[in-house]
């Protein structure tokens, strides 16, 4: 670790240092530090209640940490709001889908494109040339995403009428529409069948191959082991292990608290 940090070529996209969160007397996350390397797929795993989602929310700006530091792209961003993190290039999906019901699939995905546009209230009201051009371009830019996720025929469908798996796809497309440098996926395989999970695994790898970094919180062990470059394991809010999948699989502590617990 120390030699990694002293290496001048070492430039993680996300660095978390001594992150701590307590809710009242409950310490949900205790002194967690780790890096996410540029262009990698990393997972945070751990049993239920281990603090994974809390950790996630602190990185995405949903709430500030009680202590510690979050660095994104070399800048300290601790305590910034979600919309500020989004503008920096960190976009996320939600464990419990948060789609805008009443809006079409296309509109939901275009919402993800928000940070890439600039037309404001006045431009919108006047339907200015710039505003209309931007809108056309936005549609052109997100259409390949719909195709990639087999949603093309559903562009005008109200998002509430989609199957759960399709809704998950819309969430992924929405986050990708913002051209994120770092994509945070909160339990992306939850509720998906095996076939859909395989599709998801392939797609996450394709996202990485586009040069993006992916950080996911996940329960599905096979997914994590298959596609991740690195894994961090949380238990009771503390990081108990970190490394490549093979090492994690063989790690005594991990087997005891997590894998073993699940098999039993």
């Amino acid at each position, binding site marked *: 670790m120390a030699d990694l940090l002293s290496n001048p070529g070492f430039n993680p996209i996300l660095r978390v240092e001594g992150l701590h969160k307590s809710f009242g007397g409950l310490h949900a996350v205790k002194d967690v530090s780790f890096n996410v390397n540029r262009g990698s797929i990393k997972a945070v795993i751990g049993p239920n209640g281990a603090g994974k989602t809390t950790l996630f929310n602190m990185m*995405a700006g*949903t709430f500030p940490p009680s202590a510690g530091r979050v660095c994104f792209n070399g800048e300290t961003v601790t305590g910034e*709001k*979600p*919309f500020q993190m*989004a*503008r920096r290039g960190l*976009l*996320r999906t*939600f464990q419990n889908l*948060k*789609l*805008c*019901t*009443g*809006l079409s699939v296309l*509109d*939901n995905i*275009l*919402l*993800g494109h*928000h*940070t890439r*546009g600039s*037309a*404001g*209230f006045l*431009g*919108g*009201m*006047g*339907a200015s040339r710039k*505003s209309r051009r*931007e*809108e056309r371009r*936005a549609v052109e830019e997100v259409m390949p995403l719909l195709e990639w996720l087999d949603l093309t025929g559903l562009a005008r469908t109200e998002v509430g009428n989609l199957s759960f798996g399709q809704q998950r796809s819309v969430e992924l497309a*929405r*986050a990708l529409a*913002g051209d994120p440098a770092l994509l945070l996926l909160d339990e992306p395989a939850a509720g998906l069948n095996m076939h859909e999970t395989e599709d998801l695994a392939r797609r996450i790898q394709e996202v990485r191959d586009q040069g993006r970094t992916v950080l996911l919180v996940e329960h599905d062990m096979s997914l994590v082991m298959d596609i991740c470059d690195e894994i961090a394991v949380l238990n009771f809010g503390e990081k108990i292990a970190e490394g490549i999948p093979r090492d994690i699989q063989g790690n005594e502590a991990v087997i005891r608290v997590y894998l073993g617990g699940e098999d039993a």
Partner: protein
Amino acid sequence: MKRYRPVAAVAAAVVLIQLATLILGKGFYLTQLTMSAYYVLAALGLCLVMGYAGQISLGQAGFFALGGYTTAFLTTRDLTDLGGTAFFTVLQGLGLVIPKETLYGGTVIHLSPWVSLAVALILAAAAAYLLGVPVLRLRGHYLAMATMGFGLIVYRIVLGTRLFGEADGLVNVPGFALVPGLEVSGEMSSRIANYYIAWLVVLLVLVLLINLINSRVGRALRSLHGGEEAASAMGVDTARYKVKVFVIGAVLSALAGFLMTHYNGGIGPSEAGVAKSVRYVAIVAVGGMANLWGTLMVGSVLNFLSLRGVFGHYDEAVFGLVLVVMMTFFPGGILGAGTLRTFKVRLVEILNRVRRNRKEVIHG
């Protein structure tokens, strides 16, 4: 251009209604139809705030009164005493003062309504901003209560201040000359012209709002209603957007109040009343919340009937009843798809609950 088709339909309806009043010899209806247009304008502003940004405001009448009272106050002052000051000279140089003869042969000098228009809109925007920044952090009922507080303050100020005419309001407000020969005023001779001015303003605002809703910003606004967390995660500064929408809604209401005051030649404290704010909320709710067309249609019909005195003494009660019925049976408005089905579902739900309660009373 497809999105403007309904605007054209409304424009056609506006013309047809005028022709109908002409043929039927009911030209006097145009007065109430003109006033309805201005109330609709204020309701459209609220529709944006409530329907599209999901924020309930009970202060819309406060902004309406702010616009009306500002212009009534400013355009009825005699500026003769200011003559010679630098401020007056500048106004005079810009052609923004209007000398007038009084009944007794003297002259008074009034401020041009163009100046009071600017002042009214800026005041409304500033008030909405100052109110919105702290208040829009609150949600649901709290926001409704805070905006209602604002409405009450405006109401009490205009009612209790000598300068604002107390219970009598302000009168003798001059017409607002748009171009020579065409002014917003209650002159009988310009009744038809005023009807068209009012509805033209409504149509213009409608086009602007439709554009907005269909833009990048509009999409973010539509997502706020129910999906605030997602909108924020996608880079939308939700707090700022809410404040901006609130300001736009307030400015539209103040514009409506401004025009109405010049049309009526005065304004009274009832325009600032909370009952009026509730009326706007009822109109938007009946129209289906996020539905500019619903607000437009319901607003024109209900206001017209109310202004014609169809509801008699029960005017406010009718709007109250409308709100109760809407919230109970048609939470999605009456002009949306599946309205009848929702109604049936709600009715069955309520009847079942009543039956169950009765059983409990009997057997329990």
